[in-house]
Structure formats: C-alpha cells, structure tokens
C-alpha cells in the first residue's frame, strides 16, 4: 500500500519472537499508524464505506436493480425512517425491498436508503476520479518540471506550438481553412526545428533560422508559470464557472474538479523531484544508462509519492464536499443520486422531513471526516521529521 523505498521489498511478516526484528519500512509505518487511533478509526470507516459503495453499485445499477433509487411513489412521499409502506396503494414491484423505508422517503416518495446506496458509489467515484485526474496531471507536469526543468524552450518551439494550438482553436471555432493552414505552418516549423537540431553539430545554421533557436525560458519556468496562472483563479469559483457553462453530467463534474485541483500535487512532485534528482541512487541509475522513463517511474515517482498520497486522501474528501456544494447551488447531476444532492434537495423540507437532511448530512460528515483523519495519520507516519523517537 505504501511503498516508501523500493530498496526494501515487503516480505511476509515473520512471527518468530526470537528472530531479530527485521521489519520492513512498510511494517514499521503500519505499526506507527496503528498507534494513531483516530487514523485507524478513519481507515476502518473508509474500508466500510468502500465496501458499501461497491455493494451499492451492484445493488442499484441497471434497469431493474435490487434497490431502485429512481422509483417514484408519490403517495408515499416524505415518510419518516423505519415507517412501513402502505400496502394498499402500492403495486408489488413498488414495495421497498427491505419491507420498510429504512431511511424514509423523499419528496417524490423515492426510497432514501436506495438513494443513499447509489449516492455512496457515485460520491466515491467523484472523489476517486477527480483526485485521480489531479494526481496524474500533477505527476506528469510536476515530474517534467522537476526532471527536465532546465531544458530550454526556444522561439521555434514556441512558434510551432502557438501555430498548432491556434490552428486547433481555429478549427474548433469553425474557421477550418485558417485553422488547417496554421496547423500546417506549425508542423513545418517543427520539421525545420528537428532537421536543424539534428544537424546542429555538423555545420552552421543558416542565417534567419538561427532565430528559431533563440532560447526563451526553461521548461521549469513554463510549468511553474502554468501553476501560477491556475492558482490565480479561486478554485470553487472556477469550478462554478465551468460547471455553469457545460452540461451538468456527473462525469463532467468529476473531470472539472480534477482539472482544477492538480496544482498541489504538481508542486509536491516537482519539489521532491528536484531534491531526488541530486541523490546518489538516481545518479547511479543514470550512470548505468537506465532510461529517463524508467528512472522517473521506477525510481523517482514512488519516492516522491508520500506527500501526494496524503494530499490525495484529503483531496477525495474535499471533492465530495465540492460536489455537495455544487448540488446546493443547483449544479448537480439530477440523474444520479449523490449524497450531496440528496442533502441539498432535502434542505427544502428541513422542517417537514428532517431525515432528508440529517441522513445524508451525517453520512457525508462521517466519510469525509474518516478520509481526513486517515490522511492526517498518513502524514504523521510518512513525515520523517514528525516521527517520534523511540
């Protein structure tokens, strides 16, 4: 689960008392982690939630699921939790599977328990996908900045990418002819660059083309600049703008949350890479002729992951909260139940049907809290500076 150092392979725990303590780092961390009761509680809740979410997926998915979260029974609306269904007005297929409305029904008579089940997996997916996207972008950009940071971007590079980018935007905007022309021009510049670049050492570059090799700034400047630009937008505000402007489908919401929250992990990775690059094992790997690709993904990424892991755990929690906030403002996806939209649509009935608010409210609270505590425990364990000396 947590591979801190690839030098120490996780070995099966040894039971012998008399043997010298040959604990792997993982076990050491695990033992440390176990002592943190709050974090353990978080982990337990997280595991339970995970099981519920996976179960919820199978129980609520498809045309006729076991628990149908979309089944409307208007005559049974706003029934309190644990109440019995009215057998006379319901068709047999409309009866709740459990025989009672475990968590009551909502304003359309839908079974809140089924909706919570569906919400569990949808909310979990929102959290995981959003954070997954953020972490992947973060690793790629942060990794490039950290590893290739000193590479220079020349005028030619810039020209080519501006031309191609502009062309693509032009095509998207409907000006196909201009767009195609720009893309072709950009490709031409790129071709010139590559040919000249190959023959660079062999002979002088013809006048005029040398302008293309004028170095502007480094890759690192480019990526940190990009991060700075992204940080200039208030995140929730940015999400809100984008979500207001695109169809409110749950997968778009996940993507948008992911695309707007990668900056943290990119920074962490970049910082870690900058220091790892100078370490001996990387230098050794380079000297052995290991490819860059392999160095980055086999040696550096695993070692740089720990701060990212912590921020990812907390990121999942905040993605769930962001989705709830968006639902509150009416930008949720109504075709799926999420805990956020059950909660926000329940608040209209706070005085008539408090369970519609409290059930999802406490569910969100518990799960998010569990994620946060777990993440905090992880941080404590993974941060060597904070380790208690034994």
């Amino acid at each position, binding site marked *: 689960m947590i591979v801190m150092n690839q030098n120490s392979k996780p070995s099966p725990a040894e039971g012998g008392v008399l043997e010298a303590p040959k604990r792997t780092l993982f076990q050491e961390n695990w033992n440390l982690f176990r002592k943190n*009761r*709050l974090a353990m509680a978080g982990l337990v809740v997280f595991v339970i939630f995970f099981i519920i979410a996976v179960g919820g997926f199978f129980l609520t998915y498809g045309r006729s699921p076991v628990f149908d979260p979309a089944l409307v029974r208007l005559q049974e609306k706003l029934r309190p939790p644990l109440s019995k269904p009215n057998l006379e007005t319901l068709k047999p297929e409309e009866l709740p599977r459990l025989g009672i409305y475990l968590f009551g029904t909502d304003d359309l008579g839908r079974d809140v328990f089924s909706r919570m089940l569906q919400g569990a997996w949808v909310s979990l997916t929102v959290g995981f996908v959003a954070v997954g996207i953020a972490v992947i972008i973060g690793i790629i950009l942060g990794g490039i900045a950290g590893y290739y940071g000193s590479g220079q971007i020349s005028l030619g590079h810039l020209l080519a990418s501006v031309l191609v980018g502009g062309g693509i935007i032009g095509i998207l905007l409907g000006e196909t002819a201009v767009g195609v022309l720009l893309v072709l021009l950009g490709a031409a510049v790129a071709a010139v660059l590559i040919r000249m670049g190959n023959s660079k050492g062999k002979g002088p570059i013809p006048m005029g083309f040398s302008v293309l090799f004028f170095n502007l700034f480094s890759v690192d400047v480019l990526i940190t*600049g990009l991060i*700075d*630009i992204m*940080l*200039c*937008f*208030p995140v*929730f*505000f940015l999400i*809100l*703008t*984008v979500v*207001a*402007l*695109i169809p409110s489908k749950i997968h778009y919401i996940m993507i948008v949350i992911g695309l707007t929250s990668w900056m943290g992990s990119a920074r962490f990775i970049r910082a870690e890479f900058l220091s790892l690059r100078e370490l001996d094992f990387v230098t050794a790997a380079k000297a052995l002729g290991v490819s860059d690709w392999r160095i980055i993904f086999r040696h550096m990424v695993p070692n740089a992951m720990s701060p990212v892991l912590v921020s990812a755990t907390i990121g999942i*929690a905040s993605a769930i*909260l962001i989705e*709830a*906030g968006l639902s*509150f*403002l009416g930008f949720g996806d109504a075709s799926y139940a999420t805990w*956020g939209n059950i*909660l*926000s649509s329940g*608040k209209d009935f*706070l005085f008539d049907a408090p369970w519609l*608010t409290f059930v999802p*409210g406490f569910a*969100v*609270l518990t799960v*998010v*809290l569990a994620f*946060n*505590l777990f993440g*905090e425990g992880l941080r404590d364990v993974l*941060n060597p*500076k*904070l380790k*208690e*000396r034994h």
Partner: protein
Amino acid sequence: MLAFIGRSAIQKIITLFFVSIISFLIVHLAPGEPSQIDPLNPKFTQEVLERFRKEFHLDKPLHIQYLYYYRDLLTGKSVSWKDNRPVLKKIYERFKNSLWLFILGTLITWTLSFPVGIHAAIRRGGLYDRSTTFLAYLLISIPGFFFAYMLIIFVVTHFHVPVIGMETFGISSTGWHWFMDRMWHLLLPSILGAAGGIAVLSRYVRNQMLEVESQDYVRTAKAKGLSPDKVHYKHALRNALLPFVTMFGLILPGLIGGSVIIESIFSWPGMGRMAYEAILARNYPVILAVNFISAILVLVGTFISDLLYMVVDPRIRL
C-alpha cells in the same frame, strides 16, 4: 533584491496577461448569452436582440472584444450589463460588505489556531491533542451549508434573535449599538468561514511546532533544565512562528473571495454572491473584473510572501 523585484514583477505581469486571456476565453466560448438577451421572452424581437448584442460588442470578433473589455476595465469605464452601473463601483460596494467578514474571519482563525495548535503540539498524543485533531477535522468535514443551517436553527429557536442579514432588519440604530448589532450578525457567518481555516492553520502550527521541538537546540534547552514553559514558548515558538509571517501575504486574495453559499444563506450582500449571480446572468464585465482583481491580489500576495520570506530567512536568496 532589486533584481528579484524587477524579475518577479515582469513574471507576474506575464502571468496576469495569460490569466486575463484564459478567463476571457472561458467566459466567452461557453454557451449562453447575457440574460438581457432573453430569447424566450415573446416581447423580444430578433431586432432588439441584435441591438443588445451590438451594444455589448458581442457582434465583434473575439480579440476586439478582448481589447474593449480590458480597455474599459483598466480605464474604469467598464459597466455592468445588468444595471448599467460602473463595475468598479459595484465591486467596491460589495467589497465593503465582504471586508467585515474577511477581517473577523481572519481574526478568529489566527487568534484561535495558534493556541490550539501549540498546545496540541506540546501535548502530542494526549487527549487534548487527539480531541483537537478530531475537532479540527470535524470542522472541515461538515458540508458548509448543512453546518450553517444547523447553527441558524439552533440560534433562532433557542435565542429568538435574528442572525441573517448585515444588521437586525428594520431597526435603525447608531453608534456603539449599531456596531454590536453588526458584530452579532457577523458572528455566525465568520465562524463558518473561519472553520476551515482554523482546522488547517492549527494543524499547520502543530506540525511546525513539533518540527522545531525536535531540533537539537530545543532539546539542548530542555536538557539544560529550563522550565518547559520557557522552552516551548520562548525557544521553540519563536522559531516555529517564522514561516507564518510569510502567510500574511497569502491571505490577501481572501479580500475579494467570499463564499457564495454562506453569503446566500446569511443574506450577506458580499462579493461571492455578486460574482455568482454574474456568472448565472452571463454578466461578462463583472465576472471578468472580479476575476482580474482576484488574480492581481493572488499575485501581489505571493509577491509579498516571497519578500517576507527573504526578510525572515536570510539564507534564502531568490
């Protein structure tokens, strides 16, 4: 030093330029038109719609529109489409309201986080530490609006006093009385606004303290037999505090931020709500102006914090 300032100023201006382009593109390439152009109103003929588009320069190519907007914004002539009022004036009006929340929220965050974080660090692993950890995370784990409703209902049903709005509605009081009334109305929203901050900052203080306490000089001080209070509060704290000085720069963007949700629930006419309504109504000048100003604040904020960092820690050469 001067070189640093010059270089970073140029950098920030370039960043700002890109921010302005990106926000302009996001706003403009998205579907939807300003709500003044209401195609579902049978009273609006195609001709009227065209005239509105022309008035808002929406018939021009994008780059021309871009120039128009930022020219108007920078010369202060930008006008809100919704009510034809100058954008900067509108923002200033809202800014005055949001400022209250910002100041009180920041004060609550900073005065509470330090004692809580420091004590937690000193009693690491103890009951106090664990309960504050738990509480801090509880605060950031509650969906904001759920928490807000719980608080409002609790206060209204138990104390029978108004909590929403900027002051008790319809009672025109002055002076001290007015001030205290305002304080009361600020209390709940700023606690809500500060909740996340307290949680994060107190954790940060705690970790910072722990880090410093594990340094050799602190352990030496302890070994020397200094009283624990003196060790904690004199030697450790002073050094642990240093990084926080730089955070003063980072709270600057909060000036123009403001949570839509809290402002809506508490009927607080602040920046967040204005921006939110502007997004819904596609009131481009307002959206862009808010975005631009907040970008400036972010950039100035990081600049200040970089400077402070240099001042505080002479080892750093930027």
